[in-house]
């Protein structure tokens, strides 16, 4: 699947209130598609920790959908996170693994297990119940809305073509998007209760 077609499809399906955490090969392309205060680029940060950062967000904000676009190399760097997610499940969390079999931003070196690893089986084995394999743009468009109606956490593996995405670079301190997102999340959304704890 073409990466941009995949990300565009996800962009069309995204609820405007959904927080999207990106990293590595998805960060720069997504910033060209989306311009939301609810986007968080996990860039310049610790590789492999976008999914667990998103898990923290999801636990803190149970009434918001939290999506994370993880890479396969990034997922491998913290596979235990899948078990951690299953142990303390956040129903509003969806972990997408965009799998291209390479460490793309460092020059497309094959990831360990490229060609035989099954993230779907690993996620199921970790204890995540809602695990899906969407292998085409049409599958993303047709199946994702229905499966996200059920409580998560969800794990969605999407195969994409290897590309030549350079390492993303943030043009400011990571503190800036972190504090901006915290402030955005504190603001009430139109038509929504002012407090996510239920206190109006």
């Amino acid at each position: 699947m073409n990466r941009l077609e995949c990300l565009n499809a996800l962009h069309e399906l995204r609820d405007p209130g959904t927080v999207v955490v990106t990293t590595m090969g998805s960060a720069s392309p997504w910033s060209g598609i989306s311009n939301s205060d609810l986007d968080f680029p996990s860039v310049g940060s610790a590789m492999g920790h976008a999914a667990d950062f998103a898990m923290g967000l999801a636990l803190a904000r149970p009434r918001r959908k939290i999506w994370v676009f993880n890479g396969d190399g990034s997922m491998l760097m913290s596979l235990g996170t899948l078990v951690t997610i299953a142990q303390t499940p956040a129903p509003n969390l969806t972990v997408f693994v965009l799998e291209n079999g390479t460490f793309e931003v460092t020059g497309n070196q094959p990831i360990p297990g490229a060609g035989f690893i099954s993230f779907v089986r690993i996620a199921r084995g970790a204890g995540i119940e809602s695990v899906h394999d969407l292998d085409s743009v049409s599958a993303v468009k047709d199946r994702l809305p229905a499966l996200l109606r059920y409580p998560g956490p969800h794990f969605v593996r999407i195969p994409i073509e290897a590309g030549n995405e350079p390492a993303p670079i943030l043009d400011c301190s990571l503190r800036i998007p972190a504090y901006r997102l915290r402030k955005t999340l504190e603001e009430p959304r139109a038509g929504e209760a002012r407090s996510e704890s239920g206190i109006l």
Partner: protein
Amino acid sequence: MSSRIFAIDTCEGNMRVFVSFEDLHLHQAVKQSVNVLVREFTGDESRSRERSERIVAVLIDLGITHVVGVPDNVTRLIFETLTADPRVAVVPVCREGEAWAIASGLWVGGCSPVVIIQNTGFLESGDALRGTATDMGIPLLVLMDYRGFKTLGKTDGREDSVARLFEPTMRAWEMPYEFLDEGNERAVLKGVFRNAVETQRPAAVILT
């Protein structure tokens, strides 16, 4: 004698096993077969539990919402006390690096987490700390057990290398810290938490 607790530290792998005095015969058998050091565990369970309860009381006063981390022999009682308290959510992780990222996400989401790990986990998770809590400027209270503290300075080969490397690494990674002593839990925890908030960075309380 029956309430005394012993620890077995193997030379390989640093495995620790705590057993009652009645099982001392097992100690001796293990000692003969795998050449381990048997030493009496200092402090008793009830004293440690009281201390853990004091720590948890302060954490709740500070408005802590989540505890993220990996328990060890010292902090397990804190985790047990917290798990039984409905005011705080305990988030166990597989590896310490996850704790920094999850705690950072919790704080960005508006919560007030604390991370509790052992110093070995601190050494393991340096880049995760740097790339999340430190670079994001998260005012994060951290509790760390100082494994090997009592071995510091030993010249007979029994100095725990993690103890030797721990504080120099804390300083190198710009993590401020203070030691927690018996009876000063409230002052130290509050002071370090205030420091974390004012400086917008993680700050640690060390348990020995």
